[in-house]
Structures are given as structure tokens and as C-alpha cells.
């Protein structure tokens, strides 16, 4: 069967929301594992923190903050759409969510470089 062309803004917003959600779910256990090192093996934590100063890791953190911001904004957009009795142009709100995410992650990026 044919697959429909789906590259319209709200469908992309849906994909972005799902992908960012899965990526954050995968990140969280790692995050908690590294935090646990502070109690169990402080010297390994220090090694990791040194490693985290590498520009490549900082760049990955930029991606992480972007995912977090876009997932938060996208989730707020969905809740607003489903719970508030309005029908604002959803495209603009989706674009706003991405814009907000870019702003937040971009600010973070500029601070760490």
C-alpha cells in the first residue's frame, strides 16, 4: 500500500515529541547512575566530570537540553490544545514550541562554550 506523505508541521511535532520522550527516557537511568557515583566512587565521578568538559560532550549536552525543552514545550502545547476551549492555529503553537526549545538550548550552549 501507499504511505501518505506526512511532512506537515503537526505530524513532525508529533514525531519530535515521541523521539525526544524516548531519548530522555534512555538518558535518565544514565543520569542517575552518574549521580550515584558521588556516593559510591567519587574518584570515578571526578574522572567523568573531567571527561564531560570535552567540547564534544558539551555539544551532546546542548542536544540534551534541546530534547528536554522541546518535550516540555510540546507537552504544554498538547495539554493546552486538549484542555483549553480554544482552537488556535496549532501550527504556530508547534513552531512556538520548537522556537522556545531552540532559544533555551541555544542560551545554554552559548553559556558553556
Amino acid at each position, binding site marked *: 500500500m*501507499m504511505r*501518505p*506523505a506526512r511532512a506537515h508541521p*503537526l*505530524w513532525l511535532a*508529533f514525531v519530535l515529541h515521541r523521539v525526544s520522550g524516548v531519548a530522555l527516557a534512555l538518558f535518565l537511568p544514565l543520569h542517575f547512575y552518574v549521580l550515584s557515583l558521588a556516593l559510591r566512587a567519587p574518584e570515578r565521578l571526578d574522572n567523568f566530570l573531567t571527561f564531560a568538559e570535552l567540547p564534544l560532550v558539551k555539544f551532546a549536552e546542548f542536544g540534551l537540553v534541546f530534547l528536554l525543552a522541546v518535550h516540555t514545550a510540546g507537552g504544554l502545547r498538547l495539554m493546552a*490544545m*486538549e484542555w483549553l476551549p480554544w*482552537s488556535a492555529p*496549532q501550527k504556530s503553537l508547534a513552531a512556538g514550541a520548537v522556537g522556545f526549545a531552540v532559544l533555551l538550548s541555544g542560551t545554554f550552549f552559548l553559556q558553556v562554550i
Partner: protein
Amino acid sequence: MDGQSQTMDVSVWRGGEDGDYQTYQVPAYESQTILDVVSWIQQYEDPTLTYRFACRVGMCGSCAMMVNGEPRWTCRTHVRKVLTDGAIKVGPLRNLPVIKDLAADMDPFFDKWVAAGGVHTPSASRNEPIAPVDPDGDDRVTASAGIECINCSVCYAACDTVAGNDDYLGPAALQRAWTLYNDTKHDNRAGILDAVSGTGGCHNCHSMGSCTFYCPNELDPMAAIAGLKRETARSFFRNRKG
């Protein structure tokens, strides 16, 4: 008309579920629609080609097909808008069983209209005085937003949630339910909320918005479904409205 000097390659689905695309050379005309192209093939190339149409002016909703992978009302889709490298691909509507060629089985689509509580239940009989309805009232404005649906199933074919869940009622049926829910002359509002909050109900919607994006009449089923989500949730937490 600019004569038949130019032709285009039109791939058309032939057969049932396990059919395949067959390519035809169709002459290009000025102001030609996809329905014109399909009709030309049926009249001049192969009279056994099966497809549906009736009004040809975008009112009846019977000629919807997949055109280059997108659901469209073919009588109002101009070839020049969708022609890609001199070729077009036309198939039966997605998310519905194929009967033959371009004719999809619409039964699941219409069965779901009934399942979503889409049958009007009058609140008064013909012997009672006609209750006035304010055309500018909030309920009526919300109900009127969805009444131009022509049952073409374009939204149903566009929806990825329908593709992934056979039980999902789909955008058209849910929009009909939302319209009736806001109709003050409908007597079974609670029945609608029950019908749309089950396994295949409105809460399956992921708000991808393909229904609203593709609706040829520019309706907004996604907003209607959001309304149903709101009202079902509200009735869960409180007593039912109305």
C-alpha cells in the same frame, strides 16, 4: 484544450488487496482533474477499471482516492497541482479494505459513524412546537463548525492512528459525535460521551493533525476530538453536562 500532444504516466492500482500498479499513458488537457484522468482510462483504455464518483463538484464525497500517496477528493484535484515529473500515482483510499481497483470498502468507515453515537436522537416529536435555536449561540457555533463534512473518508485515510488501531473510530465519526453533542436538539448527549470514551474512542487520538491538514472542506476534526476529550474527562470528574 491544448490538444493531445502531451501525455503523462498514470499508475493506477488494479485488483484487490494483493493487486499492483499498472501504468497508462494519458493525454494531458487544460484544467484536467484526477477524476478526469481516471475516467479517461476507464473510457479509452480499460472499461473494467472500477472507481466511484457521483457529483463531480466536491459535494458528494464519493471520489476520494490516494493521489501520489496523499488522500484527496479527485474531482477537485487538478493534475497540474500534483503532477510530479510527468507522472501520477492513483490508489484506493488507505486504511480501508480494497474491493477492486480504486473502490475501497467504506463499510468500516460508516459503521464507526454509528458506533460513535452519530445517529440523531430527537429531543421532541413533530407534534411539539419547534424549539428556537440561536444561530450565534456557543453550542450552535461549535456544532455548525463540523456540519459541512461530506463523508469522503479523506481524514480517515490520512490518520496514522487509524492505521495502527483497527478499533479507533477515526476523525470523521468523532467529529460527527462532537457536532451532535453540541446540538441542543440532540437528546442523547450522555450516550455520545459513553460511545466515544471506550477502547477505540477519542482518547486514542495523538493530535497529529493529519485529518485537519487533509480535510478538503477545511474542517477541523482534530479540534472536535480535543473537545470530546475535554468533555469526557469533565464528565468523569463531575456529573455530566446537560
